[in-house]
């Protein structure tokens, strides 16, 4: 047995559309160790959310996981029956969704919604579950938790709602927590509180975390390792230091370059020209080539394989050697 908590191998998730099967996640692989935080970054639409939903077994109707393995402590989640998978969800693996307002059911109280997950996976009475809910709310730093359990979501601020989501996700001490853009749309002071919270909890419980975000600042702050996705594929994987210091893929470089920084003032930001390709009309060869400053003839022909650049640093680029910051 490996010590790996989660191992995703060649995951493929496709959407059935008018124009046939469209790949959304196309052969994604990565691993998460216990207590480790893995960040996934990448442009909008590159398949980050779909990857996490695939792990949760929650890909909705037109979408379907069509290949690969998702091993949680060696057990392939894709082989589980619906009932077995349900026992994992909310229990072994939990997820925090992006929009806190929309992710809580507006017509039930906070307490009701947290108790629900507790009672589903543990044999507790209503009162016990309520106690546990209050305890969880306290742990995520909500003042007056015993009152808040009786509140409805709309009575809470965005930051509080997001903490409720976290409380709910952590209620059954999951081994893996997936946080999909948990702080977008929150003000930085609150963002900081929430990220600290997640970080602390993961250390205390030795929870593995997959953190999906656009904010490279957050990545720098939180992640142990980083996966960069582009057009449904992993284009780079590295530990957080390597990624920021020695990015290997032109896309990663572009991403880092387009960040405005507080510490320096530039007239123009280096943005990546063009937009993410339409999944239905994927360019031939390397999907990034139309936007890539390093692109050559071969890039339009050959689809690159991911390869090791350094130890623990993988890049999917034909011209890996030539690329530099």
């Amino acid at each position, binding site marked *: 047995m490996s010590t790996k908590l989660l191992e995703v191998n060649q995951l493929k998730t496709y959407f059935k559309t008018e124009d046939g099967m469209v790949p959304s996640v196309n052969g994604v692989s990565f691993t998460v160790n216990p207590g480790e935080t893995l960040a996934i970054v990448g442009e909008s639409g590159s398949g980050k959310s779909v990857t996490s*939903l695939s792990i*949760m077994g*929650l890909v*909705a*109707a037109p979408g379907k996981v069509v290949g690969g393995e998702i091993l949680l402590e060696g057990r392939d989640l894709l082989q589980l029956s*619906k009932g077995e998978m*349900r*026992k*994992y*969800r*909310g*229990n072994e693996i*939990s*997820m925090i*969704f*992006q*929009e806190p307002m*929309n*992710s*809580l*059911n*507006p*017509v*039930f109280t906070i307490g009701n919604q947290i108790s*629900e*997950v507790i009672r*589903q*996976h543990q044999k507790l009475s209503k009162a016990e579950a309520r106690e546990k809910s209050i305890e969880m709310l306290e742990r995520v730093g909500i003042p007056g938790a015993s009152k808040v359990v009786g509140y*409805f979501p*709309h*009575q809470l601020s965005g930051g509080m709602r997001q903490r409720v*989501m976290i409380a*709910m*996700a952590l209620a059954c001490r999951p081994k893996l927590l997936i946080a999909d853009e948990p702080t977008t749309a929150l003000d930085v002071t609150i963002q900081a509180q929430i990220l600290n919270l997640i970080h602390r909890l993961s250390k205390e419980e030795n929870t593995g975390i997959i953190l999906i975000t656009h904010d490279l600042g957050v990545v720098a702050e939180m992640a142990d390792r980083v996966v960069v996705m582009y057009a449904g594929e992993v284009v780079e994987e590295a530990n957080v230091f390597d990624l920021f210091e020695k990015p290997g893929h032109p896309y990663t470089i572009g991403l880092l370059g387009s960040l405005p920084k507080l510490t320096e003032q530039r007239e123009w930001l280096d943005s990546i020209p063009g937009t993410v390709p339409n999944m239905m009309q994927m360019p031939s060869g390397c999907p990034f080539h139309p936007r890539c400053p390093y692109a050559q003839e071969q890039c339009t022909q050959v689809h690159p394989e991911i390869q090791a650049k350094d130890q623990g640093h993988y890049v999917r680029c034909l011209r890996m050697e030539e690329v530099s910051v």
Partner: protein
Amino acid sequence: MKTYIAKSLLQVIPVLLIVSLIVFILVRVTGDPVALMLPETATAEDRAVLTQALGLDQPLYTQYIKFIGSALQGDFGTSFRYGESALPLVLERLPASFELAVAAMIFAVIIAVPLGVISAVKRNTFMDLIISSLSVVGKAMPNFWMGIMLILLFSVMLGMLPVSGRGGMEHLILPAFTLGVGLSAQMTRLIRSSMLDILNQDYIRTARSKGIFEIVVIGKHAFRNGLIPVVTIMSLQFTSLIGGTLITETVFAWPGLGQLLVVAVNTHDMAIVQAAVFVIALIVVISNILTDIVYRLLDPRIKYN
């Protein structure tokens, strides 16, 4: 709460005024009630006498003011047909109408909820198509056809239920079911579309991510939210049921408001028409208020905006 209800009840006044004006004009435009009250052999002189006796020879506005004045005191005049005071005649029918309306709504809900939910969950499948078609059939199937068929089957052939009339629970089943099927058609489609919206909401995904049973996801998280638009249609349907179930009432000889009203309309029994319309207007307003309250019970957000 009290002030809200008081305020909403104030709505009654404009509604009643509009209603009274429309009805007053309508009833008078349609024709001469005197002609209907007298036997076929009556003479012109007889008519003139009766017209005067009823005050129908006075100018319209005088009649209207008089009418409003007495209506405020609950006096809508005397029914031509029954020769009795109109309001009690109308109120007397309300229990029967309510009983039937409530039972019909219950049947409609019993039918529509599972069908609507299933067709939403199984969207665009064969099942969905079947349910859609069924609800159209339910809607297109005239009530009388359905009623008569039910009577033939359950009362005449099987002898399980009484044929017609009002009485115990067993009398209620067939007419309520007949009406319920028609109502459920629209409700099913509404539940379907509102459930479709809801099922795409993020909180449904959240619920699923907790590993709770799918039936809880649908039955608790989705349904409670999906119910909100359904309440609107239910209140509309309920009010239309109070006065508008003529055909079913006729087929099942159900002594409700519908029969009273239609006969009154047909015989230009103004007093009854006016009293009935006033009562129904009141019910419309009350049901608006109740709908509001139910909204607030279902959706805690409404309290605050």
